[in-house]
């Protein structure tokens, strides 16, 4: 290597180090000035802001799919969910749980303690241990701040966003949230999903349930396969359920001995008075999407009608995992 290149590289390295150091001191200064905690250092938001972000996103999901009109069911899910959430490291968040009126199979964790589960997912659950496992997975996302971290990574990198972060918190938070509830359309890293699975198992066990409810639910999803329309978004935004089972198996097998057997209480059914979930109204198609829709104009089953002859959407694996 010639001398000139060496000098040049050395200078570049020095600039890089200085740059990092000055960026770090600015960040630390800002954080200590306003007395923010360690979590703030990681996400750039304090807990109040995190809750405000989550409330906005959860409210938007509710705008797209309202709560199932069954007050008893909603209260029940809140009691189960809060009990599971009490077993994690952020018990004092304003935990809110809701069953939303969508026939798809999915669940959403908005930052700060908001957990929404679709009626489609709720109705394939056989017992409360399975519900606890699913809610535990979502609670895991919240206590480890998975979504807020992803939102920051994608929003806060632009220079404009950095300025807004210093000068105008409201504007900064709006940038962070983006349009609608897009963070749920994008999904998280696979590693965050695997981590939430491991947490879901443990939180269910701590709450006194069978730890294996989440595993049973993942088996149900795997057995439905990728072509099941009710799983379309979940499959786009999560690792395949079979892969999640393998990852959980690797984590669990050496630790099987530490888990109590736990209980599998019955689950509350959705009230018979509540009509079946309406399919979401397709959004207006544009451009290429419109073409695809014309091409695929298959007759749709009426909303709420069961999937077809011999298909029992709620019954898969019920023989094995059911009550």
């Amino acid at each position: 290597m010639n001398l000139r290149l060496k000098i040049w590289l050395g200078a570049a390295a020095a600039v890089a180090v200085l740059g990092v150091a000055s960026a770090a001191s600015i960040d630390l200064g800002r954080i200590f000035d306003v007395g923010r905690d360690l979590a703030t250092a990681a996400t750039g938001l304090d807990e109040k802001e995190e809750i405000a972000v989550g409330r906005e996103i959860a409210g938007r999901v509710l705008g797209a799919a309202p709560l199932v009109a069954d007050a008893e069911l909603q209260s029940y899910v809140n009691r189960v969910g809060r009990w599971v959430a009490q077993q994690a490291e952020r018990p004092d968040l304003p935990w809110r749980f809701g069953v939303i009126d969508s026939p798809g199979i999915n669940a959403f964790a908005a930052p700060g303690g908001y957990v929404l589960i679709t009626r489609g997912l709720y109705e394939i659950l056989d017992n409360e241990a399975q519900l606890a496992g699913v809610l535990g997975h979502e609670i895991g996302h919240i206590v480890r701040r998975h979504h807020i971290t992803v939102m920051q990574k994608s929003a806060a990198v632009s220079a404009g966003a950095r300025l807004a972060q210093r000068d105008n918190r409201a504007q900064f938070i709006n940038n962070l949230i983006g349009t609608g509830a897009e963070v749920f359309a994008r999904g998280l890293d696979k590693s965050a999903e695997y981590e939430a699975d491991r947490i879901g198992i443990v939180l269910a066990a701590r709450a006194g349930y069978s730890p294996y409810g989440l595993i049973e639910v993942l088996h149900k999803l795997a057995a439905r396969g990728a072509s099941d329309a009710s799983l379309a978004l979940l499959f786009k935004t999560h690792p395949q359920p079979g892969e999640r089972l393998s990852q959980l198996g690797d984590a669990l097998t050496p630790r099987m001995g530490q888990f109590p057997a736990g209980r599998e209480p019955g689950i509350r059914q959705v009230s018979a008075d509540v009509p079946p979930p309406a399919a979401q109204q397709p959004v207006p198609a544009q451009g290429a999407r419109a073409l695809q829709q014309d091409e695929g104009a298959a007759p749709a089953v009426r909303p709420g009608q069961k999937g077809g002859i011999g298909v029992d959407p709620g019954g898969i694996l019920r023989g094995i995992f059911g009550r």
Partner: protein
Amino acid sequence: MFKFWGALITAALAAMPAAAEQVVVERDTALYAEPRLESAQVAQLKKGADGEVIGKSGAWLNLKLQGVSGWLLSFNVRFQVKQAEAAESAKESGSALGRLFGPRRSVNVTSTIGIRGLEEDDLRQASFSAEQMRQLEQYAATREAAAERAHAAGLAAERVEYLDGRPQ
């Protein structure tokens, strides 16, 4: 009297799988005599072997295959996609080309088999519902109410470490 028999029959049905569930072994694994890793190994199973589930205990499945039966951890198998659903999926793929090349990727909203849930565009275009948020907050449970319900359901908190070794 009828009630008694009804309860008995319900219990018997619950204890027994409704129909034989077929599974495929996902990775090489031992088959154990009992649902415990310390118990004797009765067979070594290869990936791809198929068997029938005859019982369940916690994370363990009791499996019968190739003339032997024993226990393995459920994450080592995959349940087979139900025939009825496979038929639905084939129907969905539509044309002969679809059958040749497999189901078309479900990129659109109307070619699905009927059930359509929230999708990406619904979420991107969603707008805040103050009325729904008010309801959500109204259903919230206090810590005390949640603990009381849990105890009534026979649940007691247990000490279990996280699997990744992080503090509680």
